[in-house]
């Protein structure tokens, strides 16, 4: 049994004390597998280090009545200048184990062959992970600590790891941390949520996960470095990284993935849409969004999302077959409406996607949403943002919208508006202009519009008419 009693851990930093764990307590017995959920930086890894004994608590007691492993598959536990064999020899000596037997096991399990004689620093990250996991399995601990093993190796290796851990060693105690709550759901029988230094315990994953969702939802999204993206191309590039660093985004796409895996297409589409509303320029989830719409028969919406993904740089070859299928299903001729190839350069010359079209509709017409069919028509016809905006600005008698616009919602995103209309201004000024557009003051929106679309010749012409 392992027992934590009022365990507190405080890190002293230059900016004051950081209380990571505040009187945390639980017991863990043989056969119990505890999965710990928590936001980035909540203290999950600290907890694992404390349980392992590598680090000591500031206050409180940790009682271990069984042997506890080091954090599994932890690559740092070996000496990079030594060969794999020498590392195995070292571990065998430390734990008084038979070296020959261990070597045979590691060689067999890691499939590293003659590489075992090479220094570990010459290994690829995958080889390191295989060696680390195999070495972790040579000592028969009562309790295994597992910090992020899901990211290790290929699928087949992953399966073998799971077999070693959860089948052959299913009777042991375990503490698991993973960025993937699904992994915890599948392998743990107890759950905990670490938040604000406190640990809440649950027997049921769904209850724990609901609380985790609340915790992430209640908090404002992680601060985003907006200034880093002066134009649309840069915004597309950082969006891939930003989105995956945003816990809310990850939570939403995870919900989407789970609904998709369960075949609940409409629910999955809703989750993906909510995620994309946070980061409308993240291309790969537009493909997922499109697949879900396609599965539930909304072919126009699916087509729009496939086109959006391509407009943001998703390789056309990966999407083309799906796009042709949805065009055909929607009653159109796939050859008449090909994909507009992705282009680099200024926003005005780039291919528009749904996020661009809706932002432009908001800018030029004060609308926050376009119907699937209208949007499909626009994306099919216009190969550049400039052409699309010019078409919107020139339509109807009331050329362009004047007056205040509603607050941006849905896929209409402040960043998108800025990189479309105000990329010629410094980002900070551009942000001010975007605010002015929805200001209730009569003059501000018009002043801002006069400044917009400077390098968009067709749009400017339509607006000035």
């Amino acid at each position, binding site marked *: 049994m392992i027992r934590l009693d009022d365990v507190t851990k405080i890190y002293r930093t230059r900016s004051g004390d950081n209380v990571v764990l505040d009187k945390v307590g639980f017991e863990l017995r043989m056969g119990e597998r505890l999965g710990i959920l928590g936001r980035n930086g909540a203290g999950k890894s600290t907890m694992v280090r404390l349980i392992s004994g590598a*680090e*000591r608590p500031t206050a409180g007691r940790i009682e271990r009545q069984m042997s506890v492993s*080091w954090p599994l598959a932890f690559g*740092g536990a070996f000496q990079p200048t*030594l060969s794999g064999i020498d590392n195995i020899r070292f571990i065998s*000596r*430390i734990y008084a*184990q038979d070296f020959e037997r261990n070597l045979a096991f590691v060689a067999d399990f890691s499939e590293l062959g003659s590489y075992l004689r090479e220094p570990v620093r010459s290994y690829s990250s995958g080889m390191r992970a295989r060696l680390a996991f195999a070495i972790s399995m040579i000592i028969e601990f009562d309790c295994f600590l597992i910090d992020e093993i899901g990211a290790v190796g290929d699928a087949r290796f992953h399966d073998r790891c799971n077999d070693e851990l959860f089948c052959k060693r299913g009777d042991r105690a375990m503490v698991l941390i993973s960025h993937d709550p699904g992994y915890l759901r599948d392998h743990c029988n107890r759950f905990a949520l670490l938040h604000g230094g406190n640990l809440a315990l649950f027997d049921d994953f769904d209850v724990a996960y609901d609380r985790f969702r609340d915790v992430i939802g209640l908090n404002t999204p992680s601060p985003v470095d907006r200034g880093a993206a002066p134009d649309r191309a840069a915004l597309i590039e950082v969006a891939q990284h930003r989105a995956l660093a945003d816990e809310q985004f990850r939570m939403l796409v995870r919900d989407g993935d789970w609904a998709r895996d369960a075949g609940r297409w409409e629910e999955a589409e809703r989750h993906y849409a909510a995620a994309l509303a946070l980061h409308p320029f993240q291309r790969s989830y537009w493909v997922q969004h499109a697949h879900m719409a396609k599965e539930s028969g909304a072919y126009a919406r699916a087509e729009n999302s496939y086109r959006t993904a391509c407009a943001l740089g998703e390789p056309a070859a990966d999407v083309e077959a799906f796009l042709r299928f949805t065009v055909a299903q929607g009653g159109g001729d796939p050859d008449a409406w090909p994909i507009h190839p992705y282009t680099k350069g200024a926003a005005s010359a780039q291919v528009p996607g749904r996020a661009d079209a809706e932002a432009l509709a908001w800018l030029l017409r004060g609308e926050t949403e376009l119907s699937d069919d209208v949007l499909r028509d626009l994306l099919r016809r216009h190969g550049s943002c400039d052409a699309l905006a010019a078409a919107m600005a020139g339509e109807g008698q009331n050329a362009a919208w004047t007056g205040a616009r509603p607050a941006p919602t849905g896929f209409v995103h402040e960043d998108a508006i800025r990189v479309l209309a105000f990329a010629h201004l410094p980002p900070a000024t551009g942000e001010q202009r975007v605010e002015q557009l929805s200001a209730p003051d009569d003059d501000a929106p018009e002043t801002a519009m006069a400044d917009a679309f400077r390098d968009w010749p067709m749009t400017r012409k339509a607006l000035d008419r």
Partner: protein
Amino acid sequence: MAPPVSPPSSLAPGSWRVQGRVLKALLLREMLTRYGRHNIGFLWLFVEPMLFTLGVAALWTAAEAYHGSDLPIVAFALTGYSSVLLWRNMPGRCIGALWSNLSLLYHRNIRVLDIYVARVLLEFGGATISFAGLSLLFITIGSIDPPRNILEVVGGWLLIAWIGAALAIFLGALSHESELVDKLWHPASYLIFPLSGAAFLVDALPPVAREYVLYIPMVHGTEIVREGFFGTRITAHYDLGYVVPFCLVLTLLALMTTRWVARRVVPE
């Protein structure tokens, strides 16, 4: 499947055995990491200090360095410079040792102290083999006489090792908390070197200087080693009543600092 590992407890009778095992593993690992299996491999452990000592002996002979006695200069350099290597290399190897071995703390049998002790033992081994080897060499070729009192040589040598080890563990642990230690140790060791008795006999100094130089603990050890080697040919000055309590206090400080650091250390 191997038998499960029992949870180690510091009170268990087997805990000494565990610690011995860990130290041996750390020693072998350290030797491999430092010297590898290339060319002469771990022989560098003592070949390197031997080269140092030989070089210094040659330089001093060539320069006919003044040392205040009629002793052969080779014997003088051998006893003096070997002693310097002994107390100076241990702290050098222990400062910053924990940073490069942080990941080892995930093995719960390995304690912070073990990492330092392993390095101290390795340095002690290297310096001792070098000293003994060179002594044998010079005695065999007849450039120096065998030591008059070999036990006294051993005693003095162990005393220097004690000073070096306590200093090494103390500075090693401190260096984990402040990088100033590393920065200050280099100039300090260079300054102590000429004052440590390596290059002079205390007896050759004026009485006023003698009094001050004997505050430096290494001087006592070097004097004892020389008395063991040369017997009545020199007059040695040392005071066990000063140096032993000094070592005890330094050892206590070293252990307390290590304990303090072990409580605060954050593995990567």
